């Protein structure tokens, strides 16, 4: 971490896939203790931005600084401080929940991997399914296992791409608790979802993307639900033009 500076600083980032421009001049920063709801219509660039923050996609132009270093150049070190939940579950169906987490804990260089795995499973309410293969879990329980994998190494920043997919009410409570405890202990969260009300209930800041641009970036308490909906709608209109 970098003391009082932002955990992540995005400056004038562009991302192009062939002729399609997914991100256009995106700039924002993420400081300690923030839960950012990254919102926007389909195709607005949320996932591309999240993947860029996760060092899975290299910006075509612009820079992303994470923890005081260039995120792409120092990606192995940066990844040690990121917890990522993406659309794919990132777990092995043939392995049990415990085996999956022990594997990832080892890959993250953690000690007492079995204890860490057990704690993470307890955290997401999967302790009773610890010895079950991931292939036997429902979509929602698989998403909980995915969350357990992401928080296993207590990352400074959680990047959650539609983490509520498949989660029932209890699962959403687990997710909310993870976001709250991450913010409380001084970490940060960037979360994308299409469940607007849920996201606004969790967020301390709202960033809305439209056609790859930031169309709104405000602290949660300064922006109304209607303004957020309008911003998302304006992004859709802009994309449709």
């Amino acid at each position, binding site marked *: 971490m970098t003391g009082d500076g932002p955990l992540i600083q995005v400056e004038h980032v562009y991302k192009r896939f062939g002729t399609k421009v997914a991100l256009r001049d995106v700039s924002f920063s993420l400081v300690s203790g923030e839960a950012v709801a990254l919102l926007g219509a389909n195709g607005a660039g949320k996932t591309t931005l999240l993947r860029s923050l996760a*060092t899975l996609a290299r910006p075509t132009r612009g820079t992303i600084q994470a923890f005081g270093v260039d995120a792409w150049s120092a990606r*192995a070190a940066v990844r040690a401080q*990121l917890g990522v939940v993406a659309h*794919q579950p990132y777990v*092995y169906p043939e*392995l049990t929940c415990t085996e999956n987490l022990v*594997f990832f804990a080892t890959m993250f*260089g953690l000690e007492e991997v079995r204890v860490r795995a057990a704690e993470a499973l307890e955290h997401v309410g999967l302790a009773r399914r610890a010895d079950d293969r991931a292939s036997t879990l429902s979509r929602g329980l698989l998403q909980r296992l995915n969350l357990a*994998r992401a928080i296993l190494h207590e990352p400074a920043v959680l990047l959650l791409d539609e983490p509520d997919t498949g989660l029932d009410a209890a699962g959403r409570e687990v997710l909310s608790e993870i976001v709250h405890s991450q913010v409380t202990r001084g970490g940060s969260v960037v979360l994308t979802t299409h469940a607007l009300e849920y996201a606004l209930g969790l967020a301390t800041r709202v960033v809305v993307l439209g056609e790859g641009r930031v169309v709104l970036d405000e602290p949660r308490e300064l922006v109304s639900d209607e303004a957020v909906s309008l911003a998302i709608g304006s992004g859709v209109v802009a994309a449709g033009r």
Partner: protein
Amino acid sequence: MRRVWALVWKDLLVEFRGREFLGAMVVFALITIVTLNFAFDLSRGDREASGAGGLWIAFLFAGMLGLGRSLAVERDRGTLEGLTLCPVDAGTIFLGKFISNVLFIVIVQAVSLPVFYGLYNLPSLEPMVLLMAVIGAIGLAGLGTLFSALAASSRAREILMPLLLFPLAIPLVIGTVRATTLIFQGDGAEAWPWFNLLAAFDVIFVTLSYIVFDLVLEE
């Protein structure tokens, strides 16, 4: 190294439970050996060369079958991205995958060689042949792991993999077949220059693959 062994342990566990490709590799190798046994005239003087050629055709194609799938399965499931997100360099992922692939090929060889011995009546269980088999497996896995990663993101990976692998594997194929023929003929001492050549091939290609793996794994 702890992370490399974790990768190997994970690969073995996933394969033994999921039976994604090891079974197919073994069956393919056995079918090739049995079929060529009927195709070759083993009563003639050149049966050592025919047998060595048949044996390595079986290993090469069976190896390719598994190598092509090893990273493609991870990419299709999205778990390769999960591995990429771990704070390890690409070389660590390469080493884990490479060792797993060597073990899979060695398992295929361990099943195939006794069958080959029974059918061809050639000394395929001699220590020098076993050593040759392992050296060949290392070279094949070294190149195959790299090209598997390269081909995994392509829709035409089944075509791309052999197109990439075969040209560079030619020295390996020539060396292993020649050395194995010499051992079968009882000229084991004559095979040592081939061993040295193949060992050098292994070192060069495994090192190069380790170094450039980062380029094929990242976006």
